[in-house]
């Protein structure tokens, strides 16, 4: 169980692994996540399930090596196992059955976006995808998204490919040009999701976002993942992780995401010095 079967390097800092997890694969639905732990001293971190194959009993995880745990995870190779892997957690995404949806993915957020794109495509929804990153070499899963989209736009912050600007700018341009989607799904770094919501708010388009706050148990027990939605406290692990982005208190979410910034610096310092367990 939890054995890594395949590994693919998507960008210098982004990796994709296919993990044997039959119990999780059997139940996983778009929008759900797992909690994993890499070592005996390790932290529990949530990762959204990027894909699953019920027949083969596998799930796919994509992660960016930003923190101590994801860096340790990045060192694992095929045949290695992930010490602890629990899921699928959270509520499945509520996706429309018909109409037009714009899927907006930024950076590593394209990975959790992909299962929603696949499901929307399967349902026959007209899917327009906007995929972006800082520069062209950081665009991930382009081919996979393209295969299930009716239209795909690539954006880069530095203009090295496609539209020169943020994904939210591209969406704004589309809406200004008369596109009228029924819903938008936006997944990526918090500033990107917030900017996308600011664009769609003017047009009154329902916008789903996937929150990825700090979690410990992931089953509702600890309340670390508190997010204020429409003035009410929600637990992202059991009430989410997908929420109506127009109702999310983004400033609070951003602040809470940075609670352990000082400690992270310390941990990363240790990682660079090869001081992992």
């Amino acid at each position: 169980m939890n054995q890594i079967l395949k590994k693919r390097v998507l960008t210098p800092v982004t990796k994709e692994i296919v993990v044997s997890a039959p119990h999780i694969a059997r139940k996983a639905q778009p929008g759900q996540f797992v909690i994993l732990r890499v070592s005996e001293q390790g932290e529990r971190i949530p990762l959204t399930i990027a894909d699953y194959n019920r027949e083969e009993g596998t799930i796919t995880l994509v992660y960016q090596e930003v923190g101590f745990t994801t860096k340790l995870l990045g060192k694992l190779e095929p045949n290695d196992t992930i010490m602890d892997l629990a899921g699928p957690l959270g509520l499945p995404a509520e996706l429309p059955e018909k109409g037009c949806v714009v899927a907006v993915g930024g950076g590593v957020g394209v990975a959790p976006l992909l299962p929603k794109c696949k499901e929307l495509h399967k349902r026959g929804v007209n899917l327009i995808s906007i995929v972006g990153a800082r520069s062209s070499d950081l665009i991930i899963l382009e081919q996979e998204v393209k295969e299930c989209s009716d239209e795909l736009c690539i954006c880069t912050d530095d203009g090295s490919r496609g539209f020169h600007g943020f994904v939210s700018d591209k969406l704004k341009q589309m809406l200004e040009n008369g596109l009228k989607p029924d819903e938008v799904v936006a997944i990526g770094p918090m500033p990107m999701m917030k900017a996308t919501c600011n664009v769609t708010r003017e047009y009154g388009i329902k916008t789903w976002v996937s929150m990825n706050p700090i979690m410990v148990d992931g089953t509702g027990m600890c309340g670390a993942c508190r997010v204020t939605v429409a003035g009410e406290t929600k637990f992202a692990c059991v009430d989410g992780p997908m929420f109506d982005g127009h109702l999310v208190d983004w400033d609070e979410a951003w602040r809470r995401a940075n609670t352990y910034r000082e400690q992270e610096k310390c941990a990363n310092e240790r990682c660079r010095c090869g001081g992992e367990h």
Partner: protein
Amino acid sequence: MAARKSRIEMPVQDPTARASNFEQVALGYTEKMALEEASRCLGCKKPLCVQGCPVSVNIPGFIKLIKEQKYQDAINVVKSTNNLPAVCGRVCPQEAQCESKCVLGRRGQPVAIGRLERFVADWELEHGTPEVPEVEPNGKKVAVVGAGPSGLTCAGDLAKLGYDVTIFESLHEPGGVLIYGIPEFRLPKDVVRKEVNYVRNLGVKIETSFIIGRTTTIDELFDDGFHAVFIGSGAGLPMFMHIPGENLNGVYSANEYLTRINLMKAYLFPEHDTPIVSGKKVAVVGAGNVAMDSVRCALRLGADKAMIVYRRGREEMPARAEEIHHAEEEGVEFHLLTNPVRILGDEKGWVKGMECIKMELGEPDKSGRRRPVPIPGSEFVLDVDTVIMSLGTSPNPILVQTTDGLGAHKWGGLKTHEETGRTTKPGVWAGGDAVTGSATVILAMGAGKAAAQDIHEYLESGSTDW
């Protein structure tokens, strides 16, 4: 020789020293102390103490064997009804249970039953060879949801009766609140691991990182060949006060604070990867055992000031007297008849103070305790940088949401038959905090034990009446 009126005191770590380490506070009896204390037991023919024990330990029986220095036999007597004696000897509120019934208590101090139980349990963990009864498998499978006190007890008892038992635990380590909640200084995790191993040695299988209601459902467990299911899923979701500022950085639920420290070993950061904010001025809101554990952890993480903020008075505090006493000895401040109104943040969104209001006690409320009433105009700001909400929990809704026919009360607790633990769904039993809301380890164990007995009777009878 008349028995001495007072019990033998248990040695404890010096308060000043222990307030800055996570080592055990109460050190346990030596053999000499245990023999002296055991000699106080009158060995009543009709022992009232046993009636006070939720798992009916033969108390005079094991104490008699201590007197005879037959420690292995003594622990075997305890373990014939209690699968977790080293845990119970440390965290049971004996003063409200067995010891409250002891006849010596009428004219002096009752026999220190809990300390003696701990002594024989620890003796076995150090010197003994745990005896595992030989059991003929009966071919029936039972699933247990959650590896906490009620689940481990139910599973252990069923295994002793020949059942093939699997426990499904959502966290990566079994033990439930014994592992994630109760701190090392009160209940060393090594002791918990040894007792969990005893349950494993009885033949119980434990699947960790397996969430019933998500990874698989209760109905699917029956499809997979299980004949009965016991739910001991525990405390659930932490409650908050719903006051302004509760989501500021530096506000924790007690569940999160304790889980980071105990399960994840955040006090050993960065050797362990999980961080924690170790505040210098920490307020814990609430006065139960969980609040005492939290505030004492805050001291050990280096707080200059660790405070309990509680809206009622000293008499109403729900924590064990011993825990309150230990907290006071270690220097915890008690702000009683004080209730938070809002939490104040600095420009970066971190806690910088907590506005509170003074309370006075009015007429008794439905819990029988005098209702705290705010005193108008008495608001003041408490200087704090960390706030821990320890207000209890409400049961986790995942199981009810994903199981057809599993009934729950409005407040979230599962509906069960009081004596047997049968839920509204045939073939499913429940016990512990998932049924009662936040309660004690031993009450959860008692519920697990009662359910195991009823599961056995039900499956033996072959009846389908529910």
